[in-house]
């Protein structure tokens, strides 16, 4: 559905800002994401009145109120279900789902699984701050083991779920990862997500200044970014640290390793193939800080979207059948009771 129009954008970022006061905590990473989205929408050639933002419940899920589009702030964890109904009822609409690590992966995990599996044509932006913000800081399914919070005073015990790994396991066809402060990269990722037909799953590392400040610092910190982040590009060797390091697949152990790139020789470095799911799962599973954090489009292998398949089947099934309602009522064996009885 979504092609990025090449022509000059018809809207300006301000056209995408609603008149509502933004109510996030000062310094919250959500502001940066809001800014990036408002900046990107015009470049996508999207139209406010044909755009619907659907969210669940959480700080992140307040997002739709601040956009001058159609918006539905639904209930906790259920945004994917409402989005499914909206898109099936009107495939012409651009549907965006805004969710958090709790909304999308705790209470909403099942709907996320089936949304991704069905490959409904929409964009999912999952704001991962590894915490329940709105309810005042309890640990979430993405919180690292040992996270201390009101509900885990001695540290959380569970191992966190990796949103992108989950999306892959669910059969996702587009999986990407970015950072709230990556104002240069995020728009690129958003564009890819928008143009991808099907469910585009985008995890955004988002800093909660109040309850989880700095959890991502180690790799989001701009100073060390070169060595702590690896931005993937399809068809390009997996290089980072300004090309001085790369990712290599050990042919014996069949596992990734970091190798030094000596005077530009990247022969040992694997090339990013967006359609290789197994490698994508390796990239997602890379432990930090032994490995850099993989960012950008990790996996993209388009397939028919649910709404498109539905439309196509509709055409096929209905064909030139005429919808004769009175005939329908009379289907099957019936009998006449004569007047003169």
């Amino acid at each position, binding site marked *: 559905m979504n092609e990025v129009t090449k022509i000059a954008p018809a809207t300006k970022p301000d056209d995408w800002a609603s008149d509502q006061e933004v109510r996030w905590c000062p310094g919250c990473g959500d502001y940066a994401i809001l800014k990036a989205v408002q900046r990107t929408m015009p470049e996508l050639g999207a139209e406010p009145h044909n755009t619907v933002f659907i969210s669940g419940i959480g700080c992140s899920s307040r997002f739709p109120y601040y956009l001058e589009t159609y918006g539905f702030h639904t209930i906790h964890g259920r945004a994917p279900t409402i989005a499914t109904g909206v898109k099936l009822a009107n495939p012409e*609409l651009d549907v965006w789902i805004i969710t958090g690590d709790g909304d999308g992966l705790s209470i909403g995990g099942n709907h996320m699984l089936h949304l991704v599996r069905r490959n409904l044509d929409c964009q999912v932006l999952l704001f991962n701050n590894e915490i329940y913000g709105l309810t005042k800081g309890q640990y979430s399914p993405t919180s690292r083991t040992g996270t201390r919070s009101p509900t885990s005073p001695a540290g959380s015990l569970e191992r966190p779920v990796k949103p992108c790994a989950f999306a892959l396991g669910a059969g996702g066809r587009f999986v990407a990862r970015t950072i709230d402060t990556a104002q240069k990269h995020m728009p690129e990722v958003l564009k890819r997500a928008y143009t991808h037909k099907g469910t585009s799953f985008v995890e955004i590392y988002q800093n909660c200044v109040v309850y989880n400040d700095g959890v991502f610092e180690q790799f989001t910190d701009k100073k060390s970014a070169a060595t702590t982040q690896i931005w993937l590009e399809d068809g390009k060797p997996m290089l980072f640290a300004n090309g001085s390091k790369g990712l290599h697949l050990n042919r014996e152990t069949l596992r990734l390793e970091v190798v030094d790139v000596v005077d530009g020789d990247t022969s040992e470095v694997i090339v990013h193939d967006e359609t290789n799911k197994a490698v994508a799962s390796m990239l997602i599973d890379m432990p930090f800080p032994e490995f850099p954090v993989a960012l950008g489009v990790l996996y993209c292998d388009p397939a028919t979207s649910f709404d498109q398949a539905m439309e196509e089947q509709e055409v096929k099934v209905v064909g030139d059948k005429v919808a004769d309602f009175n005939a*329908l009522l009379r289907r099957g064996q019936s009998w006449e009771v004569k007047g003169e009885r």
Partner: protein
Amino acid sequence: MATAAKEPSAGNGARVETVQRESVVVRFAGDSGDGMQLTGGQFTLSTALAGNDLATFPDFPAEIRAPQGTMFGVSAFQIHFGSSRIDTAGDQPDVLVAMNPAALKTNLPSLRKGGLVIADTGEFGTRNLQKAHYAANPLEDGSLAPYQLLAFDISKQTLESVKEFGLGNKDALRCKNMWTLGLALWMFGRKRAPVIDWLKVKFGSNELLREANIAALNAGHAYGETAELSGPLKQFRLEPAEAEPGLYRTITGADALALGLVAGAKLSGLPMFFGGYPITPASAILHALARLREFDVTTFQAEDEIAAIGATIGAAYAGNLAVTSSSGPGIALKSEAMGLAVMTELPLVIINSQRGGPSTGLPTKTEQSDLYQAVYGRNGDCPMPVIAARSPSDCFDVAIEACRIALEYMTPVMLLTDGYIANAAEPWKVPEAHDYTPFPVHFHEDMPESGKLNPYLRDPETLKRVWVKPGTPGLMHRIGGIEKSYDTGNIDYSDTNHQKMTDTRKAKIDGVARTIPLQAVEVGNDHGPLVVVGWGSTYGPIRQAVEHVRNQGHDVAHIHIRHIWPMPSNLGALLKVYDKVLVPEMNTGQLKTLLRDQFLVDAKPLNKVSGQPFRIAEIEAAILGMLNQ
């Protein structure tokens, strides 16, 4: 056929008598594999074609295909038909067809004393007798003395009737149900042609099975015709029932509901979106609609009930006539999302095909115990209209009414039906689309002067809010489950606003009472010593019971409520003029609570929670008991 003469239990040349009857109840019972539901269905059709009024009650096991010969594997189909009005499937069968010992064991208790048992001796071997926990063969130990018995080897008869087709023994025996149907058709003087037509469609290209089944049907019929039986085998003659002229068909509640929803969509001019998740006994509605795409129906099988209602809320938001359907446990799961639909004031039809509860309960049995849940089962002050269907064909009209209310008031509406209605069939005078007044929908598209749309802009009459489809230029707005300002639609936690919105939500739903019909009295006077008040599928037994006692000279009335919430505006006044109010329900007294709360009338409950419909006699007894107090 020659074979008939050889039939052992036949004999001494007496001619079969014919008896005139006003109504008869027949129950076919056999193994899940014996095809009793098909037999019943076809017998129903032939009965309808013969012009009798009728009501049926399919009663099948929870197990998909239980091991052969077991008691929990017994599948039964009961039909009550006659030359006068028929409202129930009948308290007690007059004729029981028992295809094996388990079927006899489990169904005999309901048989009228003196009733006729037709049994297939071929299935009464030791193995099957054990499975039915019979010490001795009941066909021989005289334990059936209180009944008339016609026992002979239907299996053998069937095998011989299809011998020529050289089917395997298993397939050949599968024709037993058609043989039996043939005999039943003969007993009631019915034509075989429509059944034969049906068999031709059913087996289509498979000539062998088609012809074999037809042969078995004919053989069964011929058996009655020619076998000169002494004793119990009678032919019954029933006059056709009086009926309004017109075109008729038989219909189950599930099918009528599906058609009614399509009618609702047609009358509103909207495409329908139906989101469901399979659950007994609600699935049939989803199945029926999945085949009606050409009527602009989209069906969506969700991952669970929450997703099902979530998707319908989304479809409603996008401008469809949205419907979701489940039974008790699934409705419970939907309750949080119903609150969202109430808060965002989106139109939705929520169907509950009630079954035995609580929890998983008795999935294949019927009950009315979700009325509390329908009216009260949500967090917060969360008013929602609730209406209930009384019979299979009534489902059609109730579905249309549910769509009308949902769209005219921008509100979710709960439609209650139950397992009995869903599966039972009755004759239905097929309506025409133009018999119903359309209720076209207007989507809001005009630009507000302010330049800012208030999504809670209301119709001063109905208080319904505007319905703005995403995609409408210039009217972008945000809605959600958090309380919103009456004046702007923005988030608003202020005390005055919450009070105002709460009052408005209540006033809007209370106002629905202005567009629903006044409550009528079904039977009897609009005042008197006793009124029996019912809702839903108790309609049949209540009506019959009331007529019986009226025939005995008692001034008793019957009021049957379709609109459970809000209630008809005249109902309170109406009830107060009766001395006593009796409320039979297949629950522990739920409508009773509403009546007492709303009208402060001393409504007395009559409760049956057994998974089985009321018998006429049970209600009759309660009425007489109450009159004599």
